[in-house]
């Protein structure tokens, strides 16, 4: 039963909180390293509500891209959250406000556990339990990160610039474990690699979404080969 309806135990909650704490700290330290004031870094993170979009935005700005190229790349990267919401909302109890509240807080761990519930009555409750664990780490993390941002010093020397891509890889690992997800991911990476030297900054990330076509073809071939 427990396998069918995963619930977050105390140890899992603590690990999730610690994960989001460290993600919050590193995001704020990066923002401040890239020139944001304390207030700007705190506002950006709490208003945008998506670390992935901020990573994508900063990556394009670091590559010399303009503000709008970086914004579009950040918006495309946020598609992940819209897609998480498509999976979550139909499983929630009726009620526009309840559904909207859950929808805007859709992240990977809470949606993953909520949609695995077989008992419909538990979907919403488990969603908010996981969310509580995440936020229990996230909010202290962004406060601590904002406060220590100026004293960390050269973040590249500490290898913190490698933390963000590693964190993103860990977050989408579940998607890459399926054949079509891996095909789409590799195709997106190859499109980006091919375009970085020739296209304006931001464009490689935006056009990488066409890697989905390769993922779909991979699925068709898999289906075709299954008797």
């Amino acid at each position, binding site marked *: 039963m427990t396998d069918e309806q995963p619930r977050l135990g105390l140890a899992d909650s603590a690990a999730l909180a610690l994960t989001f704490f460290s993600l919050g700290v590193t995001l704020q330290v990066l*923002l401040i390293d890239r020139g944001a004031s304390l207030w700007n870094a705190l506002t950006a993170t709490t208003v945008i509500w998506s670390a992935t979009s901020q990573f994508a935005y900063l990556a394009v700005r670091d590559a010399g891209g303009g503000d709008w190229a970086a914004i579009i790349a950040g918006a495309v990267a946020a598609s992940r959250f819209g897609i998480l*919401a498509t999976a979550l909302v139909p499983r929630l109890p009726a009620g526009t406000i309840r559904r*909207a509240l859950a929808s*805007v807080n859709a992240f990977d761990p809470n949606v993953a556990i909520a949609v695995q519930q077989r008992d419909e009555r538990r979907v919403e409750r488990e969603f908010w339990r996981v969310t509580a664990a995440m936020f229990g780490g996230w909010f202290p993390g962004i406060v601590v990160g904002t406060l220590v941002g100026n004293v960390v010093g050269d973040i590249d020397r500490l290898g913190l610039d*490698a933390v963000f*891509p590693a964190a993103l*890889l860990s977050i989408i690992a579940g998607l890459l474990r399926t054949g079509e997800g891996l095909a789409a991911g590799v195709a997106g990476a190859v499109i980006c690699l091919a375009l970085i030297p020739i296209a304006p900054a931001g464009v490689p990330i935006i056009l990488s979404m066409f*890697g989905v076509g390769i993922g779909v073809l991979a699925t068709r071939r898999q289906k075709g080969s299954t008797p």
Partner: protein
Amino acid sequence: MTTSAIVALAVAVWGQRLLGGFVVGPVLARRPGLAQAVGLVPAAVVMAVIIQLSMADGRTLVVDERLAGMAVAGVLVWRRAPFLAVVVAAALTTAGLRAI
């Protein structure tokens, strides 16, 4: 981040979540083929963001300490290591190689 970036990204993020939940979700529930294709978008786009963060220096492709950190992270993710182990190993590998 610029004010326009904060506002525009907030609209994009909050808007896509609400649009996904209330508009796209019900459509996809009736079209499983489309739902599967849409579900693959994050794999492609986030991998591109990872490439940009770990292999680009401006508009030049570079192989440096970050990629070594990512290689270690990739192995750990593949072996289902916990999130913290992945990011700490990536940072230590990158910082260690830079210190040499």
